[in-house]
């Protein structure tokens, strides 16, 4: 998403694409889809319950994008704008679900007491299934930052732009996520050894 072109050039290309989408040009919409659907699908799937939810979420996201593209003014890149829209939607859905079930939701900016790093055996190879499960157990905001940074490879500044927080918050959320995952995977390993 970070481009090597001068930002002025990128923005005008983005504004052009946005304009064409707004006027109903199918090819332009398809271009946007091809550029970002893959990554967004991965994000949506891991932010939610899995494949079927991800399909619905992805449809919602692109539909929302179509509806709101008129409000894109070029302040950020079109990609960042789209990812912001997407993550907000995923977080909303996730939080609604959790609120309905009476669970507490975490907040992005709450002052962090860093979880104590658990001493213990180092992790050996991490199984994908275990990791997916550990990710699914992360609180929403934490999960969002981790997925964007560690799974999808965005930089902290980009993550901050997408999630609407400071770069420092992105770093601390990603760190918190890694610690929690480590704790969860470590616990499983201990259990396995005892078996």
């Amino acid at each position, binding site marked *: 998403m970070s481009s090597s072109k001068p930002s002025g050039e990128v923005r005008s290309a983005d504004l052009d694409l946005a304009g064409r989408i707004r006027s109903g040009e*199918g090819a332009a919409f398809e271009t946007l889809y091809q550029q970002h659907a893959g990554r967004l699908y991965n994000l949506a799937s891991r932010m939610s319950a899995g494949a079927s939810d991800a399909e619905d979420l992805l449809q919602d996201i692109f539909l929302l994008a179509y509806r709101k593209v008129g409000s894109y003014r070029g302040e950020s890149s079109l990609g960042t704008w789209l990812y912001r829209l997407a993550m907000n939607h995923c977080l909303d859905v996730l939080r609604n679900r959790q609120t309905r079930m009476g669970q507490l939701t975490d907040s992005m900016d709450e002052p962090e007491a860093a979880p104590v*790093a658990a001493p213990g055996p180092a*992790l050996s190879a991490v199984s994908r299934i275990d990791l997916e499960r550990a990710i699914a157990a992360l609180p929403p905001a934490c999960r969002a930052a981790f997925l964007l940074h560690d799974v999808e490879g965005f930089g902290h500044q980009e993550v901050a732009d997408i999630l609407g927080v400071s770069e420092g918050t992105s770093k601390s959320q990603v760190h918190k996520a890694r610690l929690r995952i480590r704790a969860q995977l470590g616990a499983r390993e201990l259990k396995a050894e005892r078996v």
Partner: protein
Amino acid sequence: MTTVTCQELPIAAYVDGELSPAEERTLERHMEGCPTCRALVADLRTVRAAAFTLDRLEPPADLLARIQARVAAEPRASARLLAWPNTRGAWGVWLAAAAALLVTTSIGLAPLLGPAEMPATGLAPAADQASLVDSVQADLQAAEQHYDRAIQGLERIARSDSAELDPQIAAVLQKNLQVVDQAIDESRAALKTQPASSTAQEGLFEAMRTKVALLQQTVELINEMRKGNQAEAGRLMQDLSR
């Protein structure tokens, strides 16, 4: 053993590779004597690496077409708001409701996006004082038309390519499509007698949604069978060329 010193260390930044060389050296000197931090750094690196190599999931190939169909079904609310300023009232609410009924379905179709494809909804300009019920009717008709076209498109594929399916399965799908068709007919008939009944409306759209979903399932099955047959054909070619 975790000490206060360990807690203050820029472990996170180190794992991300964001420390200056001097800061890195300081941290590494600490780690030489601190197995807890060593283990932590190793684990965090492991988690980060594992995260980056997670499965890359692929959205289904027809998802774009489904999204485009939904987009095409969007009411041109913005256009209407420009042309007819008094649509913001109750009428606007009904527009949103009709659109909402559509939004929850995935319609699998070839791309529909494009002004030429937008169906005429037959809505008269605001100057014509149509009653609320009439305009709701018109919007519901528009929604129905969209479902109908989605259904026709899928039916065409399902009918022409059902040879790919095992006849027993084709028969089951056919029979169940008839069940859904009956539900659609009953709902339509009910709506004729009670156009304002939300139960009848919901019944119709639910049945149409189910039909679209069932047809989609049929088409997906056909595609899977075809893939299987193609794979076999591929092997056939391989065998022949040996």
